[in-house]
């Protein structure tokens, strides 16, 4: 590992000079939903399943004994991501722009696509993490997004307002 350009005791150590005054920002979103409400909605309008969930999400949930709990968790995850972005369901966004996938050990991860991914990147998203739980007929999702002052690809990060002004 190359030596740090600045002594570690310096508060700016590890940061490039141009962003030393801007620490990473954390954005968070949480959502709680009744499992029965999601089950009822998907049962009464089966066509909505493909509009809201990706084929991979549906395949995962349908393999489970209690598919409704897993679908509800994924619904809550999508809502949590939208809350973390601060936009709600903004223009051109699709529910399937947000996908929950599971690692081999079962840990859920998020994948973002389309307009949702574009907005997240404009906010400087560096990492996004998700936790899901369900009990007592409720499913909860919690999303934490770490945003850097400059986006990983070098593009400037914006606040939602900055982004709007530059649109």
């Amino acid at each position, binding site marked *: 590992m190359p030596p740090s350009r600045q002594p570690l005791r310096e508060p700016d150590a590890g940061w490039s000079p141009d962003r030393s005054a801007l620490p990473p920002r954390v954005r968070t979103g949480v959502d709680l*939903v009744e499992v029965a*409400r*999601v089950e009822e*909605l998907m049962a009464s*309008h089966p*066509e*909505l399943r493909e509009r*809201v969930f990706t084929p991979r999400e549906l395949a995962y949930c349908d393999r489970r004994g209690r598919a409704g709990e897993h679908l509800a968790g994924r*619904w809550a995850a999508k*809502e949590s991501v939208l809350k973390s972005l601060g936009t*709600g*369901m*903004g*223009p*051109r*966004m*699709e529910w399937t722009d947000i996908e929950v996938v599971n690692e081999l050990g079962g840990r859920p991860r998020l994948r973002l696509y389309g307009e949702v991914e574009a907005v997240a990147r404009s906010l400087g998203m560096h990492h996004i993490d998700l936790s899901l739980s369900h009990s007592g007929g409720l499913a909860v999702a919690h999303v934490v997004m770490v945003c850097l002052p400059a986006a990983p690809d070098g593009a400037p990060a914006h606040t939602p*307002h900055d982004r*709007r*002004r530059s*649109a």
Partner: protein
Amino acid sequence: MPYEGKDFGLIVQQAVADALGIDLEEAVPEATLLGDLDAESIDLLDILFRIEKASEVKIKVSDIAELLQGGIPDEEFADEDDIINEVGLAQLKKSLPQIDVEELAGKLTADEVLTLFTVQNLTDLVSERAALTTASA
């Protein structure tokens, strides 16, 4: 004419009542969806899909904010503190004619706009969308 003879007011009221599990009489035109009727986003998805099935007019949740803004860019719609400005309020008045622009001037924030959205506003939106589709057919 796929929409001929359709009572969009009744279709919307019925969709709201069925999705929220309330009586038709409670889904009055002046009731705000997110405020008075306590609808959540999953309910909005349900309502819009019921409307689509009953009327063939497709409106997505993500369309609503866009339609309310009428194509005006964000920076011309609100000020730096996300307070809706004069131009934004004038645009909102077109979709939400019940609002008191003078009363809301300098106070209404972007995230509050949807809480003003009523059953009647949704009916108007569906009617407009149907008219546009018919005109372009």
